């Protein structure tokens, strides 16, 4: 439970603990996820994947597979139209269709272990599996490279012969570095010259997977008239529809995507993998085709986040004031360009009010799956370095780790490296809450340590649509277009009910398919409750306006003389006249005779999103004989703007914290010398289990975002930014050694302790 939440008295639904409208189906097994759709005549699709990290495809022979009884279709890269390659200049967001089609199914080369080379559809899963064995692929194996620093070396194997580094003048040799992105503010060199203390460190992190429990799953159903239906577990069916149309050369209007319930995404279900294959197979077989990934495929073939090397140098005055910050980020993009360096640059120092910043980010391709977004994509690796160095500075200067952050905290009016000037922002309040919290003030025992770290995410707005239909008994159907991953239906329904002044239970939220509502952008970037929430409020107010107009007609007054209050149209003032209030259900009942149905709709492109800053406080105990790190206590503080559904806001904070803990301690992609992933399962890709963690405390700071009708900022991304550094700082506090490489697995900790003892002995 939260330590404290401020609830405005006048809010009756928003901010209360409402039971989510989709909950019943999810506790009874009724809810349909990606793999749960079963259609008549449906075929089983399976994908053949490369066992090689890097190889030229000399030929593919599918004839034996096609001849196997029960096999209804086989596709390879040739079954998809090739796409033009984007040419420079490149914008910051890379959407290269040439890359996209090759990531879905290989053409000239395979770029990673697990890369799709062919797919089959058959009448049973076992026939489909057997058919895969009959496909003969002739590979010419090429040398591979995975680590970003190795990939930058002059003799590294080159993935794309026509890729020349952007940002390097006159590059004549192809490079795995796609580009070097730079950002700067102030005069860093001058800042360092004024510094009393400068600390410089290198940090490394390994690729980690989003680890959603539901593997990717979809059903493609193409009919002879060219219409295409797709059922899929995705974070954005509208975005996928548009991409699918492009990749398959189909008109957008012919394609309808329905988003299934989604079993977790965290960014990893933004890209498409199986959908184009299922549709193409279905077009060939004229039957529905279901493709469900195995867990092994999910690890080998879908987006992990970047592994990284980060160099960080920070200079401070003796009082702890940071005067210069300089960083270089080297991020793996996977097989195709597009690592999360832009987000890292935009966020990594942004909870601090700094005058002099210089950042260089390297976007580097290497032989692993193309990275996908993972919760505040790109930022945690950079924050691990920033917060690690700030911790070192605090230690050296003997300043309390929270005080040094207070000294540098961003506030209203601060301008970050991207030029964004902050409105109200609750970081100082947050830090003061940390200091006053009992967790910060309890004593630690031997081998125990406490760490603190902060993190920032800027959030997103974007396009959203919503419709509100007032039914004739006064119940309400709310239609929106964002797949509900973590309870967003509850927040949407709460805002609509609050506006209408009716009980939460009277609103039924529905997530529309792509043919039933206007374009709605991804459930990602913590934009849903902000942007789609805004559309919902606007659509609801539209319906209310109609209600007021109807009441005005009934009373023979002007619409301006009617107000909406507590679910009723009421005279705006005593001067209007003495009319009995008309309820929503009364107005709805009369609607057919008074101009027709009452509905509101909204189509917006939301801007004005507010950033959210979080702070994580962690206690650990380190077993000095084994290097085992036990998590003792974890408290998450975050400025959430306004918690529409406090239960689910807390859940986001707790979940992000524990994902970050896994990233910090044990999760990593492990490759053999052939570049094959050797831990592609939950047994050896070690995500935290229930017995690894205690209860996770949450403290919600509510500094409302003035640009949202209910003050929403967005909450889901920020909680994965601080935990890696917070855990590392806690480990350092326990053993006296800074761990600068993730994961801080027991062998690494033990090695560091041994090296430290050796050094002390010398």
């Amino acid at each position, binding site marked *: 439970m939260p330590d404290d939440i401020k609830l405005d008295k006048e809010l009756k639904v928003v901010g209360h603990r409402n039971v989510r409208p989709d909950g019943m189906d999810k506790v009874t097994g009724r809810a349909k996820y990606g793999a749960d759709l079963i259609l008549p005549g449906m075929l089983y699709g399976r994908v053949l994947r490369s066992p090689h990290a890097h190889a030229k495809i000399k030929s593919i022979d599918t004839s034996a597979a096609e001849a196997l009884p029960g096999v209804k279709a086989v596709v390879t890269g040739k079954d998809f139209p090739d796409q033009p390659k984007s040419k420079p200049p490149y914008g910051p967001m890379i959407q290269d269709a040439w890359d996209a089609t090759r990531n879905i199914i290989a053409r000239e080369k395979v770029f990673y272990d697990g890369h799709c080379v062919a797919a089959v559809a058959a009448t049973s899963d076992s026939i489909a599996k057997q058919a895969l064995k009959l496909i003969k692929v002739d590979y010419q194996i090429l040398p591979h490279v995975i680590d970003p620093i190795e990939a930058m070396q002059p003799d590294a194997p080159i993935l794309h012969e026509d890729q020349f580094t952007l940002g390097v003048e006159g590059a004549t040799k192809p490079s795995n570095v796609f580009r070097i992105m730079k950002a700067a503010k102030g005069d860093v060199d001058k800042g360092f010259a004024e510094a009393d203390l400068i600390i410089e460190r290198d940090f490394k992190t390994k690729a980690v997977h989003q680890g959603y429990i539901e593997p990717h799953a979809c059903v493609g159903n193409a009919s002879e008239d060219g219409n295409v239906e797709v059922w899929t577990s995705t974070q954005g069916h509208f975005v996928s529809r548009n991409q699918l149309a492009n990749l398959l050369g189909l008109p957008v209007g012919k394609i309808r995507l329905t988003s299934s319930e989604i079993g977790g995404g965290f960014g990893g279900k933004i890209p498409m993998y199986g959908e184009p294959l299922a549709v193409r197979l279905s077009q060939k077989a004229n039957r529905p085709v279901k493709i469900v990934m195995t867990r092994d495929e999910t690890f080998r073939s879908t987006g992990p986040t970047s592994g990284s090397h980060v160099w960080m140098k920070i200079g401070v005055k003796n009082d702890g004031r940071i005067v210069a910050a300089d960083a270089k980020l080297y991020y793996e993009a996977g097989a195709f360009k597009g690592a999360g360096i832009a987000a890292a640059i935009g966020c990594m120092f942004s909870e601090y009010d700094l005058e002099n910043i210089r950042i260089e980010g390297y976007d580097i391709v290497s032989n692993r799956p193309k990275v996908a977004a993972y919760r505040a994509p790109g930022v945690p690796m950079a924050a691990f370095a920033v917060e690690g160095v700030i911790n070192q500075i605090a230690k050296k200067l003997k300043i309390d780790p929270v005080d040094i952050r207070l000294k540098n905290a961003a506030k209203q009016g601060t301008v970050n490296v991207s030029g964004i000037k902050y409105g109200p922002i609750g970081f100082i309040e947050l830090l003061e809450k940390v200091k006053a919290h009992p967790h910060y003030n309890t004593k630690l025992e031997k081998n125990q340590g406490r760490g603190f770290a902060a993190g920032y995410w800027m959030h997103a707005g974007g396009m959203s649509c919503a419709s509100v239909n007032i039914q004739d008994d006064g119940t309400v159907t709310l239609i929106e277009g964002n797949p509900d991953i973590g309870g967003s239906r509850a927040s949407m329904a709460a805002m609509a009910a609050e506006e209408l002044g009716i009980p939460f239970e009277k609103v039924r939220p529905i997530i529309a398919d792509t043919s039933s509502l206007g374009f709605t952008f991804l459930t990602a970037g913590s934009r849903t409750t902000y942007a789609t929430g805004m559309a919902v409020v606007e659509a609801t107010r539209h319906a209310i306006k109609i209600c007021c107009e109807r009441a005005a007609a009934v009373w023979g007054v002007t619409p301006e003389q009617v107000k909406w209050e507590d679910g009723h149209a009421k005279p705006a003032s005593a001067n209007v006249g003495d009319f009995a209030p008309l309820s929503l259900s009364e107005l709805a009942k009369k609607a057919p005779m008074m101009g027709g149905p009452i509905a509101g709709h909204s189509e917006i492109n939301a801007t004005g999103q507010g950033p959210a800053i979080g702070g994580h406080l962690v206690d650990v105990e380190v077993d000095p004989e*084994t290097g*085992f790190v036990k998590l003792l206590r974890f408290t998450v503080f975050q400025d959430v703007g306004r918690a529409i559904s406090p239960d689910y806001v807390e859940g986001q904070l707790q979940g992000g914290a524990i994902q970050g803990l896994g990233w910090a301690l*044990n999760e990593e992609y492990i490759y053999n010398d052939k570049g094959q992933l050797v831990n592609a399962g939950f*047994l050896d890709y*070690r995500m935290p289990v229930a017995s*690894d963690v205690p209860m996770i405390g949450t403290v919600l700071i509510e500094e409302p975002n003035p640009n949202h009708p209910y003050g929403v900022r967005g909450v889901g991304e920020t909680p994965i930014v601080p935990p890696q550094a917070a855990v590392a700082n806690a480990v350092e506090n326990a053993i006296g050694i800074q761990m600068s490489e993730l994961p801080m697995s*027991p062998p690494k900790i033990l090695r560091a302790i041994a090296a430290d003892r050796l050094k002390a002995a010398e």
Partner: protein
Amino acid sequence: MDEMRYETPTSVNAAVKLLAGEKGLAKVLAGGTDLLVQMRGETVVPNLIVDIKKIADMKAIKKEKGGFRVGAAVSGAELGEHPELSKMWPGVVEATELIGSTQVQGRATMTGNLCNASPGADSVPALIAAGALAAIAGPNGKREVPVEQIPVSPGKTSLAKGEFVTSLFLPKRPKKSGDAYLRFIPRTEMDIAVVGCGISLTLDKAGTVLAARVALGAVAPTALLVDAAANAIIGTKLEDAALDALAAACSAACRPIDDKRGTKEFRIQIAGVLARRVALIARARALKK
């Protein structure tokens, strides 16, 4: 595709006949928690699966000669629910209960853990330390061997064509005996042992170690019985020097590999750390009896 057959014999002889008569690959199914994973990954594609759970006594835990005979299909959960056995051999039971999740415990068996021949199997070092025997039925009749003779290398056993383990026998305990098992994993659950250590010991009235068996898992191609480690504590009261010698002997016995679960260096070091801790738990248990 060859047809995969499934049989449920009701006698040991019938099972032996099926296993011996199969020309292709025949696999015994008890809990299936290894076999099904291997089948799914297609590392094992049997032509015949012989489900032994319908054979009398495969699900039984019986008292015998002051010890216990545990049928080959007794699950970890059933083992843990047997109070007498848990009291006599707590180390063996706790080791078996560490295999997988609660769900896996509902199916996984000690015999399967042994016959899967994984070097990291949790129950095996505890069984070896306990001096457990494996009863084997086969075309040439029955035989009984110490459990450490069953695994010969990762994934391979000494069982001949047509043979299968029908039960494990845990012998009677002298007074003042105790056993224990610990493993190191980086999480608190759900991992395969990076190192495992099982120790069984018997004390005299003064608390001196009269007899000891020390076994290590995940530090060599098979679980190891480390005589030198036992000798390091026999005749001692597990003073610091004895524990140091025990740890050193365990570390010296390791022949580990670097793999995704741990490094050589780490395994060698942890083997010693665990051995000390396990010996103290086993002693505490022995003192209570």
